[in-house]
């Protein structure tokens, strides 16, 4: 189902008009722009970025002027939006994997503008990449899922087969398997980041096929509401979704971009910005967790808390060998952990034990 995104054109126009009226602040503030894939009201991915923007704005005050544009599709539309933002801003954050090529392309044309691309891996002199180790969060919820499932079927609503999503699936599966050898993971791809109706359909399909714990890598709260309705468990994605699943949400992975955004924009202000490659996790506080639900047995809760503590102290790595790829070929040897590049950042295979076929 293709989305028609005329609305971003409209929003761009409206925002530029608003900006024209508000940009009479003194002392040359840094102009920072953010490109969002979905609406800020998704209460997931884009919402989390927007919370980060608000945090940075509060921290930097009059030193920064923020521009945000929602609902920018990952097609030629995005290049146009990024270009027009590059003309008027000092730093542009593009917050979705699919913006990678357009970001790099526009960055070459605007060498004086700084760019920050989320979840990608293409570095340039004026392009930084940043991402969070969400797979560390998946490790924790994977352990909980492995303990909480009675049917031994964990349902996984996935968006697009990109490295970040694949890492999440592999990490969650390995963690679940480590506490429950019989666990099976069913992956359903909806090929959309944000389509509440379809996400709900996928959740219903997974529940009908026996899943009693759901994970999602899509942006809306739809799956959480379906889990609540059907009395199964789920995990908040990118933000605390407790409101939509007071009984269903066991915990949630929270993306905390705020400090990073404040740092990077301050670096532009101070003239210290340089291209960097950030991949931060629980340890740096970029990946956080929603409160654990009280309906979880204490042992399960303690085990999850222990995993969080170990991650935050750098004691464990969710991908610690021996791990084979799905086809049985070896990936990591005993005790080995993978490098960020290429293994983690370009991951394009399932680990051994996952039944679903890898999407092509």
């Amino acid at each position, binding site marked *: 189902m293709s989305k028609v995104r005329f609305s971003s054109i409209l929003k761009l126009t409206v925002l530029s008009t608003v900006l024209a009226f508000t940009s009479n602040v003194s002392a040359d503030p840094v102009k920072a722009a953010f490109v969002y894939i979905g609406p800020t*009201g998704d209460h997931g991915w884009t919402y989390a970025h927007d919370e980060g923007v608000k945090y940075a704005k509060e921290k930097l005050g009059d030193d920064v002027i923020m521009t945000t544009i929602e*609902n920018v599709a990952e097609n030629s539309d995005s290049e146009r939006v990024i270009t027009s933002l590059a003309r008027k801003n000092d730093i542009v954050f593009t917050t979705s994997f699919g913006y990678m090529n357009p970001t790099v392309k526009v960055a070459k044309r605007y060498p004086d503008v700084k760019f920050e691309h989320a979840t990608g891996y293409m570095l340039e002199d004026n392009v930084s990449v940043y991402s969070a180790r969400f797979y560390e969060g998946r490790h924790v919820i994977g352990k909980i899922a492995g303990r909480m499932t009675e049917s031994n079927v964990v*349902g996984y609503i996935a968006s697009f087969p990109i490295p970040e999503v694949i890492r999440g699936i592999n990490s969650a599966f390995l963690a679940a398997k480590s506490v429950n050898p019989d666990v099976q993971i069913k992956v359903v791809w909806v090929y959309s980041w944000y389509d*509440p109706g379809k996400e709900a359909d996928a959740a219903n*399909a997974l529940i*009908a096929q026996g899943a009693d714990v759901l994970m999602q890598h899509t942006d*809306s709260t739809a799956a959480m509401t379906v889990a609540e309705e059907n009395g199964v468990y789920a995990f908040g994605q990118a933000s605390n979704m407790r409101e939509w699943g007071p009984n269903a949400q066991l915990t949630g992975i929270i993306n905390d971009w705020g400090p990073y955004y404040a740092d990077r924009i301050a670096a532009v202000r101070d003239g210290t910005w340089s291209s960097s490659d950030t991949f931060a996790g629980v340890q740096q506080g970029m990946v956080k967790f929603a409160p654990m639900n009280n309906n979880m047995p204490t042992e399960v809760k303690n085990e999850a808390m222990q995993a969080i503590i170990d991650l935050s102290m750098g004691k464990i790595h969710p991908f610690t060998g021996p791990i084979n790829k799905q086809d049985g070929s070896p990936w990591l040897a005993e005790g080995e952990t993978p490098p960020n590049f290429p293994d983690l950042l370009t991951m394009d295979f399932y680990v051994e034990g996952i039944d679903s076929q890898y999407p092509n």
Partner: protein
Amino acid sequence: MNESLFINIIIGISIASTPLIFAAIGELLVERSGVLNLGVEGMMIVGALLGFVVQFHTGNPFLAVFAALLGGMAISSIFAFLTQFLLTNQVATGLALTLFGLGFSAFAGRGYTEETIVLIKAIHIPVLSDIPFIGPLVFSMNPLVYLAFFMVYLVWWFLFKTKQGLILRSIGDNHDAAHAIGHNVVRYRFMAILFGGAMAGVGGAFLSLVQVPIWGEDMTAGRGWIALGLVVFASWLPFRIILGAILFGGITVLQLHAQGFDIRISAQYLSMLPYLATILILVSLRIRLKNKTNRTVPNCLGRIFHSTS
């Protein structure tokens, strides 16, 4: 495949198809009157928002559905006024209506993205709903699903069994001739557009009142455009809307289930199928039109009517 899974799939398909049935049957009547309204997506999203807002504040599903109906009607009346009285281009006005609806609902719905509501539940008829297999499939659907089927019947009955329906079709086929024998072209079209808006509004509200208890910007995600394709797929014949909606909605649900069972069919190819079918049907319509065996395409579709006398 076990029985409860089968029932679940059928219910899933009915949930995915119903918004399409509502939106498409409304648009079918509009197009039968000779008007092309591309604003279906915009009318649906306004319905989705209003249904959600009223359900949130009152908790009364009847009021919620009624509000969605009125909301769709209200926004379609803009289109009706512009195209019927100011004689604006229907394609441009329809597109503008979609943009307006998406933008307006996103703006007006800002305060509701944090909320959730009580869904409209499926009905349960004692005895009948408990019959094995038949019960859950026939007697335990969501009330709005039954309403959608009834609306299809109602539109068919109106178009082909009533005098007004005949007049509406004649206006769609040749507005000048209909005008010449004294029918009020603009009034019929105005009413048809309002009906189309009402149905699109209810279709949109189905998403936020039955499918998921949340309001989200752009949550219709292109379903209005599918409904437009569906009208062509149905060759402007009401009952074929049901067939088409089940095909369009069914493919979405079936491919999700297929993935769960690890049956490897490319999701992209499957999603293309209904559109491919629509193109094939368009081609066959053209051929039949050339051979003058087709009488279902409204001849005046999209043409501006300007009364000179």
